[in-house]
């Protein structure tokens, strides 16, 4: 039985599950933009709000942290660049480079914003069926000329659907290599090549098989779509989100 990562849809009946996918996409945009304008305490408020949302739908933060462990290196890199490049009062000197107080705050803020956006994406994918995402993207892109809303929405939907599968394959490849003592090889480039080449090959191979299976079931751009309808709860949620964003940007 496959072990799933956090980044997959979790069937449920929570309020977040019931919100129209178009509103959820709007929330991501509003919160994302607000986080760019908000002060550190404002970003923290948004972060806590999203964490509360995750807790409401029963996602274990420990599981999320474990799934994102590979991401820590990227965050550490971003933090280090920010922390060492900002001016201000020096906190400590390391190998001739100055780590400043302002840099520490700025680095933490950037990392917090990145984590906030990841958690927002997680909240979205965990509570929104792929079919709803497809319908929402199709609705958003419909007025735009020269863009096939149906095709773009299907590509997005498939990407969302198969991210957990790709993560699972990455985990399997890593485990298979650990079983053959890859850790004894200290060269990170060698390890990266040995990990990524078979993984990418496998992803492409599976992508070919999936497209064949879709073709066998008469897949095309023209198909019966999901019906979307906004309800009073969607509008109330929008008001709540806007209020929180205003507080985080203007009052904190």
């Amino acid at each position, binding site marked *: 039985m496959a072990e799933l990562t956090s980044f*997959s849809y979790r069937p449920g009946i929570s309020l977040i599950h019931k919100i129209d996918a178009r509103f959820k996409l709007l929330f991501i945009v509003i919160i994302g933009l607000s986080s760019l304008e908000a002060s550190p305490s404002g970003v923290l408020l948004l972060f806590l709000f999203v964490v509360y949302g995750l807790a409401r739908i029963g996602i274990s933060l420990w599981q999320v942290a474990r799934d994102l462990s590979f991401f820590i290196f990227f965050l550490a890199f971003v933090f280090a660049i920010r922390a060492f490049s900002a001016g201000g009062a020096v906190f400590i000197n390391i190998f001739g480079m100055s780590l400043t107080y302002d840099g520490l705050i700025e680095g933490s803020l950037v990392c917090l914003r990145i984590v906030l956006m990841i958690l927002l994406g997680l909240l979205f994918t965990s509570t929104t069926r792929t079919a709803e995402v497809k319908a929402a993207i199709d609705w958003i892109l419909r007025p735009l000329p020269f863009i096939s809303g149906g095709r773009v929405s299907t590509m997005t939907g498939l990407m969302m659907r198969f991210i957990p599968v790709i993560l699972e394959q990455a985990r399997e490849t890593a485990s298979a290599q650990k079983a053959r003592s890859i850790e004894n090889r200290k060269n990170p480039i060698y390890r990266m090549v040995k990990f990524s080449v078979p993984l990418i090959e496998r992803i492409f191979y599976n992508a070919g098989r999936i497209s064949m299976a879709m073709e066998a079931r008469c897949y095309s751009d023209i198909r019966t779509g999901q019906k979307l309808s906004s309800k009073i709860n969607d509008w109330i949620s929008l008001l709540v989100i806007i209020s929180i964003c205003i507080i985080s940007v203007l009052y904190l």
Partner: protein
Amino acid sequence: MNIIEIKELSHMFSNGTLALDNIDLSVKQGEFIVIAGPNGSGKTTLLRHLNGLLFPTGGIVLVDGVSVSEDPVRARRIVGMVFQDSDTQIIGETVCEDVAFGPENLCLDRKEIEQRISDVLRITGLTCLADAKPHLLSGGEKRRLAIAGVLAMKPEVLAFDEPFSNLDHPGTKQVLKQIIELHKRGRTIIITTHDLEKVIAHANRLIIMTDGKIARAGSPEQIISDTEMFGIKEPYFSRMGLGMISWLS
């Protein structure tokens, strides 16, 4: 009446491998056919020609009288294909959503889609798992979901590519019962396998393939004793001279 007619079918892959070599075969409506052969004998390639996933490089495949090359979408509606690896056939986030994928592609209205979902989940015994995530199902349940996804498109012919591979004993039993039930309901069944033991007792016809050719074709009773010479294990009951015994009995 022949639902499928294959005339002088050949298929050569782009690397020059001749996968199918001058195949002639007709399938009558309501037949239960087992195509057996060792790995690389061309079984899967042949199956993929039946619903236009591959097109002939020579010869013709007719489904219900119309060439598959001319109208592959029609062929896909008539011939439903269940792949060897269920994981790559399952598209939906939930069991229900996956079953809906085919009918949605046929542009049916939502009410009809809901009706078909309900019907096939009942037939395949998956009603209680309607909202489950496909990737958390057991091997047998996944295979039944793959069958349900195809059944929802109401095909007349069901083509199964190695339906028992990677299944445990209960999973194999579930899938075999399902296939037999579908045949009883009037569906034409075509199965490729290298493991005859499980299914041959239920088949009307056995076709043995080797090197892209049909080496033997006939009733299972007549040719089952020839299987070993083509690298296919002869079922135990046949070797013991016990006649055809269902694997379910």
